[in-house]
């Protein structure tokens, strides 16, 4: 069994009270969809029924590498973090999704990080050698989410109301809980955790008729999922799901990297060499998706012009690919669906670009897969649609009936698992089971909550342990304890135990053995709120600066064009404007100027230059606009005014049009 701790559940026999926020007014159109991926993450919106679109940065990139650098004073996320990885492989965190909800003992893959927290919460030490800085995977993910939230807020021009965050369908309770915690720490109200294949099906299904059976094959950087779904009269019903939450394109890279290290004759490679091989392998894999053979040079390994063919790559990944196909067959069987009955197969995830994968999927399902929505973006599209619905938009919504991917149960005598909720049960769902005492001396009962398909407790994931105390002394089998498992629509579990003779009740929010405690999450949330205030200030300053710059520029232009005309600008006004301009220049030059100072300078400048502006307007009216109707003049002026305002600070916030939009 993996290491686990006995959780103190606090007061005994608490009556479970409904918790959570009271009614919160919704904000239609202010929900965002987030695909928090192993390799890359995205944010998309579909406000008020609009077609979904991925939000891009100024370079037009929608994908944010899920990489967080702790090298400098400031945490850096994305492509800039990725650039620092070569020099600091242990302080720049990538593929952190593989660590979510896991303990140190569960980490059976190679990685360059310094792990801490044997038996408890896993943390990565990302500090410099003399200054340890442990961070949990949840906090690292929250950094990525924060960047996506900021991108969305810039686009929406205000706060995000809430988010739908996607998770691999095969994520267990601990991994889902960790993802939800990351959302909260990033300051997001998490409307819903949505299974990635379900999100993809939603993106496809909405514009494709009312009925049908779909399979979704989702091979991402670090996870593999397959789901079989039925779309029927506005209800999306997941019939079965399967997969492997530790299998993805990263494993292809690793297999190829081992091959490269072999070619370089490096039997004992250093962490840096392994990393160099992995980076080279990823690029090589992508090239071999297009060409049949490629040369490769990796200076760090002393490898020059080695040849690798696509056939070699395919041989390396074949065992991994076959694992995904076995999972597909199992999911079809669980769904009670034959491949020939399907109306479509959807490919999701960047790793489905590998030709051998496409070929195997086509063989297995007997039809060419659908790929018309970019496989990197389709999940975010679906999440954005669901987020729009949950934000309260008037959008013809579909109801999503998702399933729990893995069975939930309790350990009983002899280390055997008693399943309480079977896998592929539609959520939310609850189930009860009655347990009895084995002797009169027994006044407590230890509950060990497990998730997985294996018969023995030690082969399944240990989610939590707690003890029910205060069972009355009764002859064997007479004390009866009823245990209720409640799974909510996010597939998160609450366990309640009740002694039936006395009716005493005890409720536990199942906190994964390797998860952050509720207190830790709360502390991090509060810290992020402090952050949020700082973030908000920073945005206010930036906006005030842009506004002032716009006014200064407009006045300088007017001065250059017509400033010499005495009738428009007399000497006194000119001096006033000049002094206002130099004050503005001084404030702009001060990097520490706050928003209030910048705004004060702008207002002063606008006031001083107002007569000059009014006279220019008058002149324009009498000169350029003769013969036009009053309405036309007013319309022209209004448009001009709008343009001027827009030119100032909104333009750079509008992302380029989504070329994949419908």
């Amino acid at each position, binding site marked *: 069994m993996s290491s686990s701790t006995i959780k103190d559940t606090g007061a005994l026999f608490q009556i479970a009270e409904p918790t959570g926020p009271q*009614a919160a007014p919704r904000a239609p159109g202010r929900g965002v969809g987030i695909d928090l991926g192993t390799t890359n993450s995205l944010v998309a919106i579909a406000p008020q029924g609009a077609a979904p679109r991925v939000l891009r940065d100024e370079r037009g990139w929608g994908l944010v590498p899920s990489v967080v650098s702790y090298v400098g004073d400031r945490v850096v996320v994305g492509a800039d973090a990725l650039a620092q990885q070569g020099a600091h492989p242990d302080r720049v965190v990538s593929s952190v999704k593989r660590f979510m909800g896991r303990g140190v003992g569960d980490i059976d893959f190679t990685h360059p990080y310094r792990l801490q927290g044997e038996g408890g919460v896993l943390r990565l030490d990302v500090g410099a050698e003399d200054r340890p800085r442990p961070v949990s995977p949840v906090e690292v993910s929250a950094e990525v989410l924060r960047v996506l939230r900021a991108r969305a807020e810039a686009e929406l021009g205000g706060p995000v109301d809430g988010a739908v965050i996607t998770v691999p369908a095969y994520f267990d309770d601990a991994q889902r809980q960790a993802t939800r915690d990351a959302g909260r720490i990033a300051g997001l109200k998490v409307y819903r955790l949505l299974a990635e294949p379900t999100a993809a099906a939603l993106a496809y299904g909405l514009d494709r008729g009312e009925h049908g059976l779909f399979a979704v094959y989702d091979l991402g950087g670090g996870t593999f999922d397959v789901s079989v779904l039925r779309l*029927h009269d*506005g*209800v999306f019903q997941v019939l079965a799901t399967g997969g492997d939450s530790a299998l993805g394109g990263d494993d292809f890279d690793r297999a190829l990297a081992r091959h490269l290290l072999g070619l370089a004759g490096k039997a004992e490679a250093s962490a840096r060499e392994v990393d160099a091989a992995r980076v080279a392998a990823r690029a090589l894999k992508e090239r071999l998706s297009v060409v049949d053979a490629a040369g490769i040079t990796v200076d760090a390994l002393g490898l020059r012009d080695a040849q690798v063919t696509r056939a070699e790559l395919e041989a390396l990944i074949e065992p991994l690919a076959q694992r995904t196909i076995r999972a597909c067959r199992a999911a079809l069987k669980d769904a009670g669906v034959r491949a020939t009955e399907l109306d479509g197969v959807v490919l999701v995830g960047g790793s489905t670009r590998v030709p051998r994968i496409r070929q195997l999927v086509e063989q297995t399902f007997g039809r060419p897969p659908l790929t018309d929505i970019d496989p990197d973006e389709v999940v975010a599209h679906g999440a954005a649609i*669901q987020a729009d*619905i949950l934000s*309260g938009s008037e959008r013809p919504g579909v*109801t999503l009936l998702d399933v729990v991917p893995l069975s939930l149960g309790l350990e009983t005598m002899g280390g055997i698992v008693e399943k309480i909720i079977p896998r592929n049960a539609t959520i939310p*769902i609850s189930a009860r089971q009655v347990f009895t005492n084995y002797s009169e001396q027994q006044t407590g009962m230890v509950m060990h909550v497990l998730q997985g398909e294996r018969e023995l407790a030690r082969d399944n994931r240990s989610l939590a342990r707690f003890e029910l105390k205060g069972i009355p002394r009764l002859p064997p089998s007479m004390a009866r304890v009823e245990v209720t498992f*409640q799974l909510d629509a996010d597939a998160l579990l609450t366990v309640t135990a009740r002694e039936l003779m006395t009716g005493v009740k005890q409720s536990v929010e199942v906190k994964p053995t390797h998860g952050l405690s509720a207190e830790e999450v709360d502390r991090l949330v509060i810290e992020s709120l402090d952050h949020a205030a700082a973030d908000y200030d920073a945005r206010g300053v930036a906006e005030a600066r842009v506004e002032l710059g716009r006014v200064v520029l407009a006045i300088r232009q007017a001065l250059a064009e017509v400033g010499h005309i005495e009738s428009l600008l007399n000497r006194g006004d000119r001096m006033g404007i000049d002094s206002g301009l130099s004050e503005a220049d001084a404030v702009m030059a001060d990097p520490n100027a706050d928003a209030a100072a910048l705004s004060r300078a702008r207002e002063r400048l606008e006031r001083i230059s107002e007569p000059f502006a009014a006279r220019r307007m008058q002149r324009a009216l009498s000169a350029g606009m003769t013969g036009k109707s009053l309405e036309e003049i007013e319309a022209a002026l209004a448009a001009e005014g709008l343009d001027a305002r827009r030119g100032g600070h909104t333009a750079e916030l509008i992302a380029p049009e989504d070329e994949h939009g419908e």
Partner: protein
Amino acid sequence: MTDADYFGLLGQDRRWDIDRAALERSYLERSQATHPDGFVGQDSATQRAAMERSSALNSAYRTLRDPVLRAEYLVKLGGVDLDSSDPRTGAPKPGQEFLLEMIDLRERLADGDVPAVRGEIEARADRALDAAIAALGRGEVADAARELVARRYFQRFLDEVDAIEERHP
């Protein structure tokens, strides 16, 4: 408990022979009305109520769509809980003869006669279910319970055969 039972929840008559298409339709319609996603933003009591209604609906659907679970549930409504070991209201104990037969089958399995044993057990599991359904039709709950207990033994046996074949394909 007419309204609260699974048949009532899904608007079906309480019998084994239900209209599968009607069941599916009713489940999808009711799910649309009760799914918690329709109540986001409302107060926590309302959200909780939606989750509980949805949970009950999903449990009902899971039970009624499955021919075996549906039969077992009807037996439970008739007063016999196959998941309980209570001597009065729990699962009836199989007779001596039946247990000896199971031991015999197990020996044949150990001798390596896997496909033949599997075929025989599958047929007997099906026959037990048919007999249970017929007994339910006659209103004889105790007979139905006995057949369903036998079917569970056969099913466990088949699961073991599956496990053996997975280890030695």
